[in-house]
Structures are given as C-alpha cells and as structure tokens.
C-alpha cells in the first residue's frame, strides 16, 4: 500500500472511531470527551497528511496540517462540487471560513501544539490561573460539544469530507 493510501485509510478509521465513541450502548456511561476528541484530532491530522503524502514518500511529521488543508480545500473546484456546492463558491468559501477557529482548536488538541498550559486530549496540563493540574478525562471541552453551532457545522463538513476520502475520491 502507498503512504498516501495508508494515511487516508487510517484517517478514515480514526474518524469512524470518533463516531463510534459517540454512540454509547444503553446501560454504559459515556466515554470521557478527551478520548473522542483524540480520535477527531488524529483523523483530521492524518487526512491532511494523507493528501500531502506521495505514494512512495511519507508526509511531514508536523501536527499543524488541518488548518492548512482547509485553507486549500476552499480553493478546490472538485471538492466544492462533490460537497454539494456546485455554482455556490461564495457559500462554500464562507462555510469553510466559518470553521477555521474551530479547526485551529482541533489542531491544538495535539499536545505538542497545545503548549505547556493548554488543554489537550492526551496528557495532563498545568492551569496557571488556578494552579491546578488537570487530567484530560476530567476536563469539559466545551468548544467541542455537539450542541455548539460551530461544532455541528464542522461535523457536517467532516462527515462529507471523510465520505469522499473513504470513496477514494481524494487520493490519486
């Protein structure tokens, strides 16, 4: 398998895990938000890297790829058409622009981008305002709750994007 296909395949699988963790079986407590968000961050990063990868060369190591990908996707006529925005380029660009703040937050869920004091989905951090050390599994990641308007738009967008990836319409 090529590097490109492998990264996109893994991204689709990570996104599937994000969706599965949101469906709690009856009688079971929901999983902590951090676990779902960890998969969401990884899915978006790996999809971005998969689009960057060449068949015989791996993509960059950096975690900061998703925001760059969205900036590029809004320029792509074929993605615009495939996502249901044919002849609606202004709306397509505006939709992606409205997702950028949240995209940055998703990107910064990676510990190396969150910084020493920033919330991330994997490792405890020190909050300088309260002096407390916080475990991700006890943190409420309020920007990412499904009821949040921006988050619901983001998920709708990602659902379509990952469907394209899953159908092999992104990798060449």
């Amino acid at each position, binding site marked *: 398998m090529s590097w490109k296909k492998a990264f996109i395949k893994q991204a689709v699988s990570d996104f599937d895990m994000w969706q599965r963790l949101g469906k709690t079986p009856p009688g079971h407590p929901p999983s902590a938000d951090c676990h779902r968000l960890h998969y969401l961050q990884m899915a978006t990063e790996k999809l971005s890297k998969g689009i960057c990868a060449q068949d015989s060369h791996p993509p960059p190591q950096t975690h900061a790829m998703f925001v*760059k990908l969205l900036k590029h996707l809004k320029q792509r*006529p074929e993605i615009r058409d495939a996502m249901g925005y044919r002849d609606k380029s202004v709306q397509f660009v505006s939709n992606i622009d409205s997702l950028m703040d949240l995209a940055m937050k998703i990107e910064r869920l990676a510990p190396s981008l969150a910084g020493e004091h920033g919330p991330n989905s994997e490792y405890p951090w020190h909050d300088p305002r309260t002096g407390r050390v916080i475990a991700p599994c006890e943190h409420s990641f309020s920007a990412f709750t499904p009821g949040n308007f921006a988050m619901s738009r983001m998920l709708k967008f990602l659902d379509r994007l990952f469907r394209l990836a899953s159908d092999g319409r992104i990798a060449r």
Partner: protein
Amino acid sequence: MTLNEIESMARYLAREARASEPGIFKIYWFPNTEEVRLIELIEDVPATPSDDPRVYPFYFPANNAAGLPAPSGVALIRPDEFGKLELPPEWGRWELAMEISGD
C-alpha cells in the same frame, strides 16, 4: 498533456485560489507536462517547522468533470519561506518558478 494545457489549468486553479483566499500574496507555477505544480505565498499559515524545512504540497487527482484534466500539487507557504525551503525533488529548483496571476 501539453505545457499550454497544464498552464491553462494552473491559471484556473490560481484564479480559484485568489477568489477564495484574499490573503494570498503571490502564486508561483513550476512548469511540467504531467501535473500542475503551484506554490502559494500566504502569511496566514503556520510556519514550516525548522526541523523539517521542506515544501509539502497537497496532491489531488485529475478531475475532468471539474475542469481539472491533470493531477495537481499545491503548497501553501509563508512569503519569507520562498526560495529557502527544500522543494519536492521532482519539482526542480526555485529558479524555475514563474509567478502566475490567474487573471
């Protein structure tokens, strides 16, 4: 494909880029007859990590229905990174870059 056909698609993508992203400072085209190769200079993107100073384009397949008859690779970098990062080997040298307006 002919270089003219590739250039035509490069200009189309450049137009789409400028229309959707006002922060683009300049767009450069690396002529090639197999794929469209573009580098966009834009302030508002994360800096390329200093421990891996390479250009990493996003690669997309051809899509005739969308007016994109050739595959393409498009990279977004900061203006101050132009000429300093390592290009994908098959893209050649920075001196081959031609500014393209998309007008």
